[in-house]
């Protein structure tokens, strides 16, 4: 079985401060990890994938297989980062995408 845990339902951070949204996973095979974001009144959309090792809107995420984590980080928060963030997992040969419960990030001006 595959499972994604996002321990924080709500996270408030001051503008300009660092952001870290936590994600832990459980999966017996080789995982594929993703972060999806939903801004107010917009559709759920892909933010980044671990496989591409990219930085999107200043966000990065590193897959740590030892700690089974895929935390999302940004060094300096901006007001436009306020949104709902979902960590998601699928696996090679098991394409079902499993989502965590999400973290609502609020950036305080």
């Amino acid at each position, binding site marked *: 079985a595959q499972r*994604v845990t996002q321990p924080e339902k709500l996270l408030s951070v001051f503008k300009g401060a660092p952001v870290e949204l936590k994600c832990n996973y459980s999966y017996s095979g080789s995982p*594929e990890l*993703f972060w999806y974001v939903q801004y107010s009144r917009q*559709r*759920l*959309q*892909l933010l980044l*994938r671990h*496989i591409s090792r990219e930085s999107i809107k200043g966000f990065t995420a590193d897959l740590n297989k030892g700690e089974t984590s895929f935390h999302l980080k940004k060094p300096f928060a901006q007001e436009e980062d306020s949104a709902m963030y*979902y960590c*998601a997992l*699928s696996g*090679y040969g098991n*394409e*079902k*995408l*499993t*989502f*965590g*419960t*999400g973290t609502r990030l609020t950036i305080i001006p």
Partner: protein
Amino acid sequence: EAGVAQSPRYKIIEKRQSVAFWCNPISGHATLYWYQQILGQGPKLLIQFQNNGVVDDSQLPKDRFSAERLKGVDSTLKIQPAKLEDSAVYLCASSLDRTGIYGYTFGSGTRLTVV
């Protein structure tokens, strides 16, 4: 490119009534997904299609939910009869291939309220 289209945006029905949702994926996307998102929870996969075939429907409550994608393009999800606990946002998504490795593209969803 056009996004994933869903209709209706909102639907209110009484329990034991029937309801249907429609989804048109991005052109050329072979894989289509229906997710259920209950308030305060993450999206949960109900069914995955590859072209017009079902890949995974293990979490679809088959006694009341059904879905089809007859021509391998658009899809319909039906609930009959609806229960109060079916109140949720129903999301449709599509991906280029069945691995989803390039990410899913989601529609805006249908918010269902069962009273």
